């Protein structure tokens, strides 16, 4: 353990109000002045990423607000038009939810392929989003399903389309006094669901216990020979989990002929911005992303 413990402060909140109050104090939202960044409270949920940094001595010193015990942030509820997942829904809860497996199978698959069982018991969907790693496994699936996030602070609540949430590397539309409380997945009509095709493939450094080198989620609704509601999102190929609207546009309403697929691959190649790093290469990521697009459409064609 390389962290220097005296430099950290941690408190556990039991209610949402308690947590939001502490966040607001740090942000200067309540009478007092705004605190410098190092004095503001950073939320910590399952801790599956932060504790790794902590152990390596790389977690910034400061104040950490444990939100694990806030019951209001738990639970998966099903409505006719959508499914709401509390931000503290664990990967285990996601992977075990039968309706998610039917209608949002890429998210189920993402949960299955994230970390080890112990990590899945502890890691949360909200944490996976707020941690903002471009290599996270659930964001590409969430992007494919037009997820929306509810952000709450003492100032009030607001909904943000997930596709607009990440704004740059580790940058996001969450003010320092806000918490992600819910993730909403809109449900398609029964007719559309019948014709929807899901594809999720994580290319990790090994079969399990791996971080993504490329992660691809795709979906569309079959409209005769044509593709509609095309969604394509990738992880580990840009500074943020990336939805690819330009590639989608090539495919939307089109019949996926060889020429169309090749054109979409071309656009995808320019829409992503992979890099060389310790886990893989730019070349590999770009080529495999394009191959996965082909695989998605070719395999989908077989169904």
């Amino acid at each position, binding site marked *: 353990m390389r962290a220097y*413990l005296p430099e950290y402060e941690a408190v556990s909140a039991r209610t949402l109000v308690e947590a939001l109050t502490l966040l607001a104090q740090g942000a200067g939202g309540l009478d007092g002045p705004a605190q410098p960044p190092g004095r503001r409270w950073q939320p910590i949920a399952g801790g599956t990423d932060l504790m790794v940094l902590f152990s390596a*001595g790389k977690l910034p010193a400061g104040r950490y607000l444990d939100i694990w015990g806030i019951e209001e942030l738990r639970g998966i509820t099903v409505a006719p038009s959508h499914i709401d997942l509390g931000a503290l829904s664990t990967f285990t809860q996601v992977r075990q939810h*039968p309706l998610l497996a039917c209608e949002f*199978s890429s998210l189920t698959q993402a949960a299955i392929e994230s970390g080890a069982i112990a990590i899945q018991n502890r890691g949360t969907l909200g944490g996976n989003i707020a941690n903002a790693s471009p290599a996270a496994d659930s964001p590409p699936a969430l992007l494919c399903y037009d997820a929306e996030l509810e952000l709450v602070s003492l100032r009030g609540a607001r909904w943000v389309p997930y596709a607009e949430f990440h704004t740059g590397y580790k940058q996001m539309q969450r003010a320092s006094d806000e918490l992600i409380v819910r993730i909403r997945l809109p449900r398609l009509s029964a007719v559309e669901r019948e014709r929807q095709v899901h594809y*999720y493939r994580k290319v990790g450094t090994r079969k399990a216990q791996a971080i993504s080198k490329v992660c691809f989620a795709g979906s569309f609704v079959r409209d005769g020979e044509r593709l509609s509601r095309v969604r394509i999102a990738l992880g580990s190929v840009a500074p943020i989990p990336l939805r690819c609207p330009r590639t989608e546009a090539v495919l939307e309403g089109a019949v996926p002929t060889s020429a169309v697929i*090749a054109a979409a691959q071309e656009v995808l190649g320019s829409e992503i911005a992979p890099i060389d790093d310790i886990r893989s290469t730019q*070349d*590999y990521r770009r080529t495999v992303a394009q191959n*996965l697009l082909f695989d998605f459409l*070719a395999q989908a064609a077989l169904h």
Partner: protein
Amino acid sequence: MRIRPQGKQPRQAEKQPSHSRLAGARPQETDCANAQLDAVAATQALTQGGDSAYDSGVKIDAEASALRAYAIGGSPPRREGPEKVRGQALYVDDLPADFYGTGEVELVHGVTVRSPVARGRLRAIGFLPGVPWDEIVVVTAADIPGQNHIALLENDQPCLVSGLINHAEEPLLILGHPDRVIAERARTLVRLEIDPLPPQLDLDDSLRRGTKPDAGPNDVIWGKDNVFKTFTIEKGDVAAAWAGVDVIVEGDYETGAQEQLYIEPQGMLARVRPDGSVEVFGSLQCPYYVHAALMAVFNLPADKVRIVQTETGGGFGGKEEYPSMIAAHTALLARKAGRPAKIVYDRLEDMVATTKRHPSRTHIKTGWRHDGTLVVQDIDFRLDGGAYMTLSPVVLSRGGLHAAGPYACDHVRVRARAAATNMPPHGAFRGFGAPQSVFAIERHMDEAAAKLGMSEIALRKKNLVRDGQTLSTGQVLRERVDMRALLDRALALSGYEAKRARYDEENRRAAQGQGGMHAQRRRGIGVATFMHGAGFTGSGERYLASKVTVDCDATGQVHVRASSTEIGQGTNTIFTQIAAEILGLPPDAITVVRPDTSQVPNSGPTVASRTVMVVGGLVARACQQLKTRLVEAGQGMRLAAAGYRPQQFRAAVQAYLAQHGTLSVTTEYEPPPDVQWDDKAYRGDAYATYAWAAYVAEVEVDLVTYETRVLDFVAVQEVGKVVHPILAAGQIEGGVAQGVGFALYEKVAWREGRMANGQMTNYIMPTSADVPPIRVEFIEVENPRLRGPGGAKGIGELPLDGTAPAILNAVAQATGLRLNQIPLLPEDLLAAYARAGLENG
């Protein structure tokens, strides 16, 4: 190299399960089904476990059953197994300061300050504010009472740097504080002033620059020419032989560094007694290596240094030489602090700072007749030894001696060189040079077969060595060798010939776009035939002159005293089996004494697949002599040579002790008179005996992601008598898993001589999900010449040798590419396709 859509999308292809999830697939259900299967399997395993001869026997007749289970060839439970399973086994970091009765309650935790650069001169050390420096013990080279080197083959490696830095992560100073967290914090507050020097980070570059005529101080970084060791094996007349060949095949082969990745990182606890003697307890393979190193560092006689092995969570060679370093550091800290000290590395430090498998490069040129007869082999084998010699010459020896493979060839030259670079020193790792050179020759055999237009099987069968023939050193094989039978068995078990033909056809069709769902999959099956010399190389065993003592105490308990360590491989259990069989006693009557240099003689290091064959042989002989002594002592002891009960044995021991005072037998290694080795000429019997093997790997390459998956693995070997079939199979399975990592996953990301991926998230070892089913088969051959207990040979390192080439030979079939470099990651395979200029589809 990306896949391009083919003219038409396949619509009517067969539906097959794939790795990806598509519409309608419900992972939930699949998982439930799997979970149920897993539960059934687990129940079966438990039931089978409970049915073992040992367990069920207890109900009938505990004594007789235990005797049976502990016989050689039985598979009794591990002796230390229950403690490990229950979490009761104490590893070094579990030990309190007063564990060994020191009375001290507080110890000092040490951390190591290391060089951030690969080469340079340490000018000054500063200490920045932020911790109470007056409470922190600082150990530098100036605190060393004896020699500032880690004694091994050559005393070139300092214990702590005193001026010139020769590799990144080289230890500069040790800091100690009773609070681990403060010690760790202090490490970040040391300011180093280093004048950097240009490092040499490539082995061939180092060899070139070390021998160029105008070599300057930045060219020669070690000795006079950057060469730790070089030797040449010569057989026949290589120069003249080329005239008689029809086909010449040439190739270059390369293997990477590999981390041992034992579960328990390196760690030591040390104390200095009032009389100045030094005691060290820790995780290690070779107590007497550490003993010798500390005698030099502390300038103490042998009886003033005591080394005790604590429970050790794996070694794989990684705890062969490095423990001397961390033991010296810990003991120096204890000396300066005036109380016990402990240093335990975390995973990051263990990975970046300790030794790894030597990276290698091999050039092979062979000459053949059209009919596939191997006429001549010319092999150039180079290892990167890193900054200090450590064990490089011995690793080079083993690598060079295995480089020509198990083939009969009249004209052989092997030129072997180990080069100094400014990389962290490379060291011992299971296989010890052989996995590197065997990879090269076994890939080369497949390339030669392709060039000759022969099957790789026929080519091997034509040239595999037989008893009576000679290896590259001129060693005549006097033991029974039947490599063809092993190969045939491996081929039969794997269905090799049929699959090889089928995959050729399927791959051809897939490349033409006829594969349907599998258009982007290629399959291959590959083989490797190889051997591994058991025990020390050449005259090593003769020099070691290992000793084992077996004695009895007043209760009749038998104590087996050897310095061979239990590192997870089963030493305790196997020594118990050997002693139990020979003495005719139940296992409880036998204690395998914890390796402690004050309690056990020097039976040599726990390395080189020698523990069962060499040390086990000494245990057997000592037990035999002890029994003979009791029998011959005769008068009234009623101890018949034919058989007796444990109570009779105890009574006989007590009667003997009453008369003679002690009952103790020490045996010493006796070199077999017919094993002759010439160290200078590299001629003669390189090893007393060899284990022989034929491995088959089956792979699938996914051209969407360039991932290679090993689907199936067959490991057939002849290792003499199998003393403990379950442990032996475990050795093979574990070695194959490590070989899968060596071949396809484990790649050190070097950045200016530093390991940049020193975490298990980024240095990728395969998990159980990446390792194929491994079918292990032992073929026992009647071999009266074998001297190990019951005719046992070495086994531990063998599986590392043949796994990687079998896999790469399979990948070569699947892809049609020349792939002669490992590890072969998906990124490397993509690059290879790019180089080959091949388009998919």
